[in-house]
């Protein structure tokens, strides 16, 4: 084993589905406890939400997913109607980075994750 991982995808470097599992508990707790954005997550079934958070993380980690831009628009359209804007988007990305820091992920990889999230901004915010 040489330990050279140049060909590994970002998703693999982060640890794949297991990394998503580890991150979801921490990430979702941060989101629910964040007063800037908690209202968007009120009153929903926690297990279902956690499953959606997993879908979110898989996407942000560059993992396999079936969502396209239109899906992202649809998923967040209701939220845009009740005021979802750039400040909330930034807050989510911030929580994401804090989660990865807590899990000991390198800054380099965190930057890559943030960059992937950034590509969805226009769709998520319905712009």
């Amino acid at each position, binding site marked *: 084993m040489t330990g050279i991982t140049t060909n590994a995808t970002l998703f693999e470097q982060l640890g794949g*589905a297991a990394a998503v*599992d580890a991150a979801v*508990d921490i990430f979702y707790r941060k989101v*629910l406890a964040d007063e800037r954005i908690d209202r968007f997550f009120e009153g929903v079934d*926690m297990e279902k939400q956690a499953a959606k958070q997993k*879908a979110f993380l*898989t996407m942000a980690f560059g*993992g*396999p997913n079936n969502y396209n831009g239109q899906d992202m628009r649809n998923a967040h359209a209701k939220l845009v109607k009740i005021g979802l804007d750039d400040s909330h988007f930034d807050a989510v990305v911030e929580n994401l980075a804090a989660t990865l820091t807590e899990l000991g992920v390198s800054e380099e990889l965190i930057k890559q994750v943030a960059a992937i999230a950034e590509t969805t901004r226009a769709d998520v915010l319905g712009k």
Partner: protein
Amino acid sequence: MTRIKFGEQFFEAENNETVLNTLLRNNMQVPYGCKTGVCQCCLMRSLDNAPPEKSQVGLKDTQQKQNYFLACLCESEDDMTVALLNNETSWLDAEVIEKTDLSTNVILLKIKAKEPLAFIAGQFVNLRRNDGVIRSYSIANSPNSEHELAFHIRILPNGKFSRWVADELTIGMPLSFSHAQGDCHYVAGQNEQPLLLIGTGTGLAPLYGILLDALSTHNHQGEIHLFHGSRDASGLYLEEKLIALTQKYSNFHYTACLSGEVHDKKYTPGRANDIALQNFPNTTGWRVYLCGQPEMVLHSKRAAYLQGASLKEIYADAFLS
């Protein structure tokens, strides 16, 4: 060649084909989403052979033990009989063997199954009246050689099923019930883990089953804190038994909470879930069980999680009617 049985039909799986794809290829209606083991939309259960470990990634350990699996990750080497989760509709026969009042509006009902059965205390079964009315009730005892199941049934003034239990069901009558299901039960293997049990009303039934399982079957060593809530003292229907258990097991603690007026010092005023979660502001590493009113369960799940408990270690039974 692997054969998958679904309902009454058999399907041949192709090499390296997942159970989900086999079923979809044959035009079966199966829910799915990501097809990568993340969303858990395709959760199913094997009724015979254990599914491959890989198809159980991310499931709760109680689900794993019960052969739940994700169809989209499941390339089985063995033949399998698989079912969607609410598809297990075969009914078992039992006879009523005991009916006693636990309080003015809670009845202890015991039935004896005609055949041996597999269950874990705290799971629930569906009871069915012969005209087809079906209700879920939690199992309040541990598995035993007599195949007996105990339930605590709260009698609602106009409750279809519960009133019938109170007024018409008598000892010796037959009653059919479903296989035990649900993941609200004790999990062996983490003997030192602290347990927080919170229940309102007959939400105590599964908690009592879990408690007996933990203390007497598994000799659990970690601290166990039970908070039982009721409006008034008459609803604390297992008080004496629970106090006796605290005397027998030093790691077991019982707090009786009254949300109505409190005249007696031995009761704590307030809601059981609020009191429990105030007493234990840090639930990191705890296993939490929540049973009873749906609003209480929903609210407490969130609180227990925000206070540190892992989502996978919060087990809840909302007594939806």
